[in-house]
């Protein structure tokens, strides 16, 4: 019996073990779950250890003499101080550095990519569509612009949702619900795809029922 056959049987056992949860919680499910989590955590640890600590810190930082990496190394060591109650406060320094750096980067990135570019494209697509002259394109862009506007109105709570403002907000909630519906449809497809992947494994790699 080759290695691949043994591997397939183990993988099949674990796959079926996880699926047994659909019937009810049981010991085989718990074993399979624990193995999955343990293997994943072990893999991440080994990868990060060799890629970061060995290749970056040891090979490049120490053996390669790139001292600019020492800033990161020192911050990393400071982070580990969290493990001690006495000197745990030292970990706040690298944490504040990370939060500050990420906040600074994100503020600019989100404002540009997720706000300004989106506003520009919503408006410019609307004006461009008139020039293109394709009715479907024009209607599509009007729907996008109307959905964006009414959706924003729905989230404006400083004014009571009454009259024209309230009607616009109601249209907004319909757009939001359609969006959630589309997202749900995609989520169903995603979950089914994952199950298809496992069934494909069971039928083709393990049982060899399909070619």
């Amino acid at each position: 019996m080759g290695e691949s056959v043994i591997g397939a049987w183990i993988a099949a056992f674990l796959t079926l073990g996880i699926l047994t949860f659909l019937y009810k919680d049981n010991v085989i499910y718990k074993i399979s779950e624990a193995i999955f989590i343990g293997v994943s955590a072990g893999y991440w640890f080994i990868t990060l250890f060799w890629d970061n600590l060995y290749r970056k810190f040891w090979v490049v930082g120490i053996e390669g003499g790139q001292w600019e990496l020492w800033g990161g190394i020192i911050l990393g060591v400071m982070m580990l101080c969290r493990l001690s109650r006495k000197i745990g406060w030292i970990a706040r320094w690298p944490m504040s550095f990370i939060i500050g750096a990420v906040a600074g980067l994100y503020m600019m990135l989100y404002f540009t990519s997720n706000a300004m570019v989106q506003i520009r494209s919503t408006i410019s697509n609307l004006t461009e569509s008139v020039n293109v002259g394709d009715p479907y394109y024009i209607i599509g862009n009007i729907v996008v612009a109307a959905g964006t506007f009414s959706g924003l109105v729905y989230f404006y709570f400083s004014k009571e949702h009454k009259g024209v403002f309230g009607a616009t907000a109601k249209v907004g909630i319909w757009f939001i619900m359609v969006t959630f519906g589309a997202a749900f449809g995609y989520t169903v497809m995603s979950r089914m795809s994952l199950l298809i992947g496992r069934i494909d494994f069971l039928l083709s790699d393990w049982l060899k029922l399909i070619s």
Partner: protein
Amino acid sequence: MKKLIAPVIIVVVILLLYFVVPKPLEFSPVTSTIILSLIGLALVAMLILTIAGKMIGRRTVFIFIAVALTLPFMMNFKMPIRITPEVQSLYDALEQLPAGSKVLAAYDFDPPSAPELQPMADAFMTYAFKKDLRVIIMGLWPQGPQQAQLSIEAALEDKEVAAKNLQYGVDYVNLGFQAGNEFVIQRMGSAFRGMFARDSKDTPYDDIPLLKGVENFSNIDFVMNFSAGKPGTQEWVQIAVDRFGVTLGAGNTAVQAPGMYPFLKGGQLVGLLGGMSGGAEFELVTGEPGKAAGFMLSQSCAHVVVIAFILIGNVAMLLARKKK
């Protein structure tokens, strides 16, 4: 004793399937039609039972989904698949690349998302090699570069690709994983070498022929990102596209895809492959029907069952409301 009945039945079924059932198992179109009709009739029966006031247990739903997903694997039907504009535009953008163009393929996913993303990634790699594109692979997820290795192996199984006798380091290179999430992309904007001093085989950056002259994004003709979450396509758009002006195409899990459409509409993405259906479309548009296209019948059957149970669930809810 009762507790042992279910496990024993499962073991017996597995042994029968493994040792007795003839392989490969394939249903004729007539048998397939009969099976699909039976599933449809069973769903109608479920609806009638619900209307009659008998509630369906969750395990019944699971059984229906399992049957609807599994049996189509053995059916000899071909699903008609329509190529959507977002997939077509990605293909068109790739088609415009001349042979020898440098393409950065970022594999930002891991095995749990592989059923959705691996088929499209394999199709992309095969297409890129056939078109003589030079592929530079990297990953912001630890297992990403390994998934890329699987794509390379799948692509090399293709006769046309195998005949090209592609060489590692000349035609493609795997730079491996780099920790740091979006900051890696940010740093690559000024110097790739700063993030990837060595490739996954430990070869120094400057000793890799393919990377000669590749300093930053300005030396890359196209970036293709396969993403299952964060860091992923959004970060590539925010930094690589909006800051450094790269041309980006993306393949996303279906959960993530709706969130990427605004970027497509905004011109920040040239094309998008959304989930398994996006992968199937890409396989077809490149002329290489593969796993994703083959899975679409199962996917569609499962969707019909889910929609049917949504309807049945709503009927049950309305009846319960009426009783109150």
